[in-house]
């Protein structure tokens, strides 16, 4: 699992050093559906994320990012790695479907604990200026901190994330 984390980290660094196309600054809210095997709605936490999106083909983008969040087990830092597919594009609006893998650490002393997860969702971008857009997204997100089961009966959450953010187009004008 640690290898996946390291690989994700270096992939993120790699794409930060290439010609990234879009930069997202986002706040994620985590209304929650369930924890472990218990379906009980509630609120799981909040995240702040910075993401880069790079075009792969006309419809597909690669998505990488870093997220700080506080959730049920405390504070954590996650690396995001995913794909985004354009579903619709109109004059000022665009809609994308996203699939993201999450790897990182829940920040504890004396040792941090590995966290993994995944998220699928859609993001609507509304172009408000020449190169920047407001974004709003939702989806479904699962996260698990396997080693936290030594301390707690709750070590996984199923959330309905709501993303609100700002997207900046970094692509040069042609």
């Amino acid at each position, binding site marked *: 699992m640690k290898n996946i984390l390291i690989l994700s980290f270096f992939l993120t660094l790699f794409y930060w050093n290439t010609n990234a196309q879009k930069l997202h600054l986002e706040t994620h809210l985590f209304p929650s559906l369930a924890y472990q095997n218990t379906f009980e709605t509630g609120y799981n936490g909040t995240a702040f994320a910075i993401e880069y999106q790079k075009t792969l083909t006309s419809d597909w983008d690669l998505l990488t990012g870093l997220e700080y969040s506080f959730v049920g087990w405390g*504070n954590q830092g996650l690396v995001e790695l995913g794909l985004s597919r354009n579903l619709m594009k109109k004059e000022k609006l665009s809609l994308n479907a996203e699939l993201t893998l999450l790897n990182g650490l829940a920040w*504890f002393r004396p040792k941090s604990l590995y966290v993994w997860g995944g998220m699928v969702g859609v993001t609507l971008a509304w172009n408000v200026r020449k190169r920047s857009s407001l974004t709003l997204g939702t989806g479904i997100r699962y996260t698990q901190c396997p080693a936290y089961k*030594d*301390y707690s009966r709750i070590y996984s959450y199923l959330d309905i994330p709501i993303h609100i953010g700002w997207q900046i187009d970094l692509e040069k004008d042609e």
Partner: protein
Amino acid sequence: MKKTYFLSILCYLFFQTSCSYLPEEIAINESILINENRDYIEITPEGETYSETALLFYPGGLVDPHAYIEMLTQFATNDEGHKVIIAKMPANLAVLAANKGAKLSEEFTGINRWIVAGHSLGGAMACTLVENNPDTFDGLILMAAYPASSTDLTDWNGSVLSLFASNDNFTTQEEIDDSKERLPSPIELNAIEDFTESTQGESIFHQIEGGIHSYFGSYGLQKDDGEPTISQEAQQAETTLWMQRFFEVNNW
């Protein structure tokens, strides 16, 4: 380059100040009812009956709430038996949800009296909770904690027990002494044998000799804390003994 260094240092400091202390690994005793959901950990004493007075606990800042299960299980399973609710806080910081206890106290049937307790930052926020909801709580237990300078409980008619440790480097004797002017009538007690009467409208102060800040929970030693001269078990045993007496003398 300067920006990179600055950002790296900033990230490192942020990481360092956001790490929570993990509890020492505990084997959860299945014979004790410990329920847990996203908002709290509930410790219910064995047996069909237990007191109608329950304890609500606020954990210390950046300390995992499970680090208090061991000590509070000792308290919950005393003679009469008391339900204990350990509140889970966002980012493990009670300052982000100081009034959470008011909502939690409404969730349980069969409980007609609530005592709130807290360790360190959790204790300071328990004082804020009581200040904002003076009629909801009858008692307040502080462990290495004191009310913030903006919190004044001098006119509160509840009972206060303040336990602090002699070798604590985070909550000092001087800070505890300063806090006395913000709590109901202060009384210092050294021996538990002197703790015999109801404490309504009073604050009982007791110093645990040789104790330290982190031994109020079970999360090992805290960086920059003092040197303990008693064991964690001894400090927690003394803490629960005084808590139990606090409940007994007030007929809770």
